[in-house]
């Protein structure tokens, strides 16, 4: 007889605990591999401060993240591009409205092999290179070597920004090599004296040399004051205005003294 109230007590305690767990929530984040290191870094710190919250993060690309958000299989979709109108339409059809939060800036830098003497290219020059019209570095004042143009796969967010800003929506010529990630571009450029590629500033390594664009060096400062031309905001999307745990996490991410402090650690440009 004595044991029954105890059991009830434990049971109700457990239920309470389970309930708070649901409220505090497990947050699922999915999407862009560019935003992944930011989300990982901030989530790690957030979970340390809120041990009852579990955040699971996976990559898969901006498109897949937004896809998962629309399906309802993730709470937050990371995206390195703004949502497309087709995706908004699909989301609205399924009864959700995606809300964007800018969480950081990315700055895309053209890179060449360290032995390349060129320091600066104009946006117009970059465009002619990527249109395949410049075949030799001599034409730009460099060594007498062929130009090997390296681009990203056409569906990556990095390509999209490059295509929009550097190429002004003109096509990268078919002879451009394709690499499927920032890391692969660094790898390919660092092993080829003729190569030119472009990467997010977070992936900058000493094995490749960053070029100035229109005499402006890609950096945190030039990104935030808007002078560096090839930069973009990075987003987290939620389905509708976030609630409870997700709201708390998003607020943490965009807070200047909390989440934003760690954006730079991940190699990106913080909002403030």
């Amino acid at each position, binding site marked *: 007889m004595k044991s029954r109230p105890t059991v009830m007590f434990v049971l109700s305690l457990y239920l309470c605990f389970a309930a708070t767990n649901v409220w505090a929530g497990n947050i699922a984040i999915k999407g862009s591999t560019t935003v992944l290191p930011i989300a990982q870094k901030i989530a790690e710190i957030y979970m340390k401060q809120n041990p009852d919250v579990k955040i699971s993060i996976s990559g898969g690309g901006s498109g897949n993240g937004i896809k998962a958000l629309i399906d309802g299989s993730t709470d937050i979709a990371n995206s390195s591009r703004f949502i497309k109108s087709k995706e908004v339409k699909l989301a609205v059809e399924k009864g959700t409205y995606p809300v964007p939060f800018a969480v950081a800036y990315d700055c895309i830098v053209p890179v060449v092999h360290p032995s390349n003497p060129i320091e600066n290219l104009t946006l117009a020059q970059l465009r002619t290179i990527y249109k395949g019209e410049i075949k030799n570095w001599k034409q730009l004042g460099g060594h007498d070597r062929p130009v090997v143009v390296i681009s990203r796969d056409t569906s990556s967010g990095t390509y999209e920004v490059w295509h929009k800003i550097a190429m002004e929506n003109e096509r990268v010529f078919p*002879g451009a090599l394709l690499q499927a990630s920032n890391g692969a571009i660094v790898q390919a450029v660092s092993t080829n004296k003729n190569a030119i590629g472009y990467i997010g500033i977070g992936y900058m390594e000493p094995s490749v040399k960053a070029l100035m664009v229109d005499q402006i060096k890609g950096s945190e400062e030039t990104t935030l004051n808007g002078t560096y031309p090839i930069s973009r905001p990075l987003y987290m999307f939620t389905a509708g205005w976030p609630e409870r745990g997700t709201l708390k996490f998003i607020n943490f991410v965009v807070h200047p003294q909390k989440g934003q402090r760690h954006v730079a650690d991940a190699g990106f440009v913080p909002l403030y």
Partner: protein
Amino acid sequence: MKKKNPSGKGRLRRERGIHLFFFSVAFASITVLGLILVFLFMEGIPIFKDVSFKDFLFGKYWYPTDDPPDFGIFPLVIASISVTALSSLISIPLGVMTAVYLAECASYRVREWVKPAVELLAALPSVVIGFFGMVVVAPFLQDVLDIPTGLNLFNASLMLAFMSIPTICSISEDAIFSVPKELKEASMSLGATHWETIWRVILPASISGVCTAVILGMSRAIGETMVVLMVAGGATMIPTSIFDPVRPMPAGIAAEMAEAPFRGDHYHALFATGIILFLFTMLFNLAADYISNKYRQVGSATL
């Protein structure tokens, strides 16, 4: 009869049960494969509402994210075919000759050591071969041949050849080794040299097995994804030399699938590319099946 053998009914039931069990296992796995196939076609066919089949297969430009987009996979198809052809040119002679050596010339002890070693090569993960091609072979080709980039058709073919040699060698070796002894003895006793015996008797006798090996090796090369994604360069152009960068179909699908908008045109186009790729590999497998049936050797009588 039932009365004579009291356990007969039980045994019969068990037998039937086992029958049913194996049938359902086989049925399940075939159903799953069938459903994947249905899914592939369901996701791929819708692209042909926007692009005609001819424009899709023979279109020269692949700009899936532009507005308006171009969905022409001809450069990808050509890339797949040329990479497979070039890698076969390398892997078939090497694979078959290794098999002849192992089956005919090598001593028992060498054979026992070398054959497992060659088969072990097949266990190398493709990403490791791809990484090797990217980090070691590409810079080497660039420096030695003085070409603009080492990530090209030739490098990819070389790496794919490494991958298909174990398949070709191992299966052909089995075929060559299983040629009946009396054929060889008869040939030798008629005064033929060892080389003449290999060339005129043993190879023709094992041709069906060798052909199957070659085609299986080629279908491994055409379907391989990681290696071509890493070392083929990925340019969507029709190659004019073997040192041009190319993008075979699997590399195109792997590179773009992750970020293609769900159920968008691009997504459907990638699945349609998958259909074309599937048709290619199926053709290879059907050919292998046909050849192994048609030229099957039954003992020494049919030579």
